[in-house]
């Protein structure tokens, strides 16, 4: 397995937009189809989209590939193989780079794990979400705890690397209950965990239910306590946070996600996928049509599903760098920010935030949010970006 060299890198993201059912908290671009999806046709469209994208990026060396969704574990292993072959046909894909696939821990999907491994996937990220059945039902998941644990075992056996997700700060969740669940999860974990607080996103079924006061999520104080507890417990267990919600044994961080947070280049292939990369001398954004069948038709007719895009100004790049970079424990390279923003941080503001224990310098060149700063990062970024 390749080691992280600290560079932002060049990632390839592939979006599989289908799910067996829509989870009530999810606002991602996912769609439920009651007819079987023509996977060969989609694979062909991915191939065409990639070829077009290759024209724009030029030859690059890929540092990671990520199959996300939706539910990519609904793809047949052959489809995954075809897509990965297409990546290799367009860019240089060194041996051993991180290739992740997101999977649901149901028994049906676990049956395909060996096929994915054979196709080249070397890391899975399982959407476990909770380790109690009541909460799994509340979250609208189609698996139970037993199935999840079986899937984890199987994945550990098959894949060199494994991560799974949990959603916490659920309604009525106490510190004690979460600590017990988290410790249990750490027991099953390999080298990586994603621990997200439940947030209520507009347009989701939870949004309406929450507004109608059918349930309540923890208030900011309790959420902050849960967050602090999470940081402490994971750090003690050797899985410290390397990003707001991501924990890993040092060295086992997700290479692909680091590319996002280090504000590197990535191409986004598939319905609703976003890309950001340097084209010519300018950093550009690509945004693909969200609706799967419309995206498919666009690719088949025009050779691309990209419907919009923009050239970022260096100011916008500076904002994005800050937004993404401060999420990382490694922080940002101040130099890079200053060059893009064409200014430094206001010294007075910075020293005040340091005094308040919200940011700290690492050596002479980097700036990061402290743990306290991390839990109010949105406010912190808004303050620094002024």
């Amino acid at each position, binding site marked *: 397995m390749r080691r992280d060299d600290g560079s932002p890198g060049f990632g390839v993201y592939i979006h599989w937009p289908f799910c067996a059912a829509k989870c009530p908290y999810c606002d991602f671009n996912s769609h439920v189809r009651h007819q079987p999806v023509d996977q060969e046709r989609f694979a062909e469209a991915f191939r065409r989209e990639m070829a077009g994208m290759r024209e724009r990026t030029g030859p690059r060396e890929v540092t990671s590939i990520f199959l996300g969704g939706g539910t990519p574990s609904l793809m047949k292993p052959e489809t995954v193989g075809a897509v990965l072959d297409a990546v290799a046909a367009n860019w240089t894909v060194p041996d051993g780079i991180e290739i992740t696939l997101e999977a649901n821990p149901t028994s049906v999907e676990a049956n395909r794990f060996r096929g994915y491994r054979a196709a080249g996937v070397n890391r899975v990220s399982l959407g476990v979400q909770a380790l109690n059945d009541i909460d799994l039902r509340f979250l609208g998941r189609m698996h139970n705890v037993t199935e999840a644990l079986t899937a984890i075992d199987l994945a550990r056996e098959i894949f060199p690397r494994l991560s799974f997700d949990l959603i916490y700060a659920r309604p009525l969740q106490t510190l004690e209950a979460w600590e017990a669940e988290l410790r249990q999860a750490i027991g099953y974990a390999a080298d990586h965990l994603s621990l997200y607080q439940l947030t209520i996103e507009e347009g989701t079924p939870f949004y309406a239910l929450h507004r109608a006061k059918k349930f309540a999520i923890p208030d*900011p104080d309790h*959420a902050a306590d849960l967050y602090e507890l999470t940081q402490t417990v994971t750090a003690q267990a050797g899985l410290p946070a390397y990003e*707001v919600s991501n924990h890993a044994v040092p060295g086992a961080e997700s290479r692909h996600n680091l590319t996002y947070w280090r504000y590197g280049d990535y191409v986004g292939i598939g319905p609703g996928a976003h890309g*950001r990369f340097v084209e010519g001398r300018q950093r550009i954004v690509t945004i693909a049509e969200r609706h799967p069948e419309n995206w498919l038709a666009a690719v088949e007719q025009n050779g691309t599903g990209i419907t919009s895009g923009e050239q970022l100004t260096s100011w916008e790049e500076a904002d994005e760098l800050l*937004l993404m970079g401060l999420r990382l424990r490694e922080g940002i390279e101040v130099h890079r920010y200053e060059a893009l923003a064409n200014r430094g941080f206001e010294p007075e503001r910075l020293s005040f935030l340091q005094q308040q224990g*919200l940011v700290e310098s690492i050596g002479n060149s980097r700036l990061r949010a402290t743990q306290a700063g991390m839990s*109010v*990062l949105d406010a912190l970024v808004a303050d620094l970006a002024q």
Partner: protein
Amino acid sequence: MNTPLSHIRNFSIVAHIDHGKSTLADRLIQLCGGLDAREMEGKEQVLDNMDIEKERGITIKAQTVRLAYTAKNGETYTLNLIDTPGHVDFAYEVSRSLRACEGSLLVVDASQGVEAQTLANVYQAIDANHEIVVVLNKVDLPAAEPERIKEQVEEVIGIDASQAVMISAKTGLGVPDVLEAIVQQLPPPREGDATKPLKAMLVDSWYDAYLGVIVLVRVIDGVLKKGQTIRMMGTGAKYPVERTGFFTPKMIQADQIGPGEFGFITASIKEVADTRVGDTITEDKRPTEAALAGFKPAQPVVFCGLFPVDAADFEDLRSAMGKLRLNDASFSFEMETSAALGFGFRCGFLGLLHLEIIQERLEREFNLDLIATAPSVVYRLVMADGGVQELHNPADMPDVMKIAAIEEPWIRATILTPDDYLGGILKLCQDRRGIQADLSYVGKRAMLVYDLPLNEVVFDFYDRLKSISKGYASFDYHLTDYREGDLVKMSILVNDEPVDALSMLVHRTAAEKRGRVLCEKLKDLIPQHMFKIPIQAAIGGRIIARETISALRKDVTAKCYGGDVTRKRKLLEKQKEGKKRMRQFGKVEIPQEAFIQALKMGDS
């Protein structure tokens, strides 16, 4: 030719809001043929020109209408109806308008009876030596009790109501009797000699986009003609008269205005500020010997800062204020800078209603979003060195060590209320440092007379009075004198930084309570920051109230990957945009909304 004095009647109408003054005026105009039915139609009220006047049922600018009335005796009379501003804020204008005529119609709602405002105005009319015709309106309504109200008028006001005219202005019932009563009961002008040098009173003036400043005059002696050069005796300014005429209410040009008559002139006057209500107009080459007595320029009584919500609107605000001042010389403004609110203006008003009207007109007619600071009265500072200074803005208060005493304006307030609410109102007046001068009964209603410090009244007194009395109490006041008060300047500190827009002068006994309320309010209005923020009220160096806004503990997007970046950036841009609308105090950002809400203080 001029109308002989014996055939002129000049009168005004005194009434409480809603008692039917404007409707009656419309009827009189209609009966005398000033406007035909078609012209009346679609006009809610002929005399109220401004939207705000119509909506609030009040008159801000004086107007006159000349009516030709053929009486039962076969003679044709010229009746000049002078519509005066009804509100105490315009008391000076009212008193001048009243002095320009000889009689008044006192219109009283036959079911509601006499109100505080009626009292104040009718006393002014009596002071101006008016004969008074009592008109009971709405006698057709089932709730009307004309006999009881007649008694009330006699008892409370002390005038003869035996000849009261019973009408319904709405249906027109009895209105011809009003015209007849005007001719029979009201006197003609007492003096007036067409051969004497010109002597006329400037009753009012306003700006017209086509004609420039229009001046409303009442001629006492002499004749006012086109082509004359006139002189304003108060200001000394001279102008050639361009037009003369009168209103029917249509503007009709006429060659001249004779003694005893009302009319208008235009004379290339650029600004209303060049004309002063009450000034004497004479002919430059043959001036009158003595100006009319009692002329004084209007003095602002209440001040407040007006700031644009969007700093970019500052110039628009300046130009809008300039335009309003063209028509309202009693409104004054000068530039002011506030750390909290940026650039704006310190404005002077005749009273609270005047303030509200100006603010509303700026917002409505000029489409401006404004923040008004807490209204403040004009304090007199007696300095240790014996000098006297006026203080218009608490933020400008000099070092207390240099001040020997602070004097504040007091008013005499008359409140009429149904008995049920008397207890609550007495308490309100006591809480506001009131001194009871009288308590009597007018039928079933209590009439309270209180002396009150004006600074307690500008502070939401009227709203409280309305809510205590469920809207039934009526209230009127006039300024009486300045009295020394134990007043202190209360400052508000946010994160140890004083916020100038929130400082105020308060009575020492009320300071703590008011400080506490303000701190509590601000605690809810200022958003959490990444650090805790103390909010304090202080008198000098002494903290009298304190609240703390706890630090923000959780504000971070849980999940953020590649696809989200554009959306996140747009959110960040919005946040940055929002911060522009906040005011920075040291490290604390206070949304403008917080100032608006904090200054809209509830009772405390």
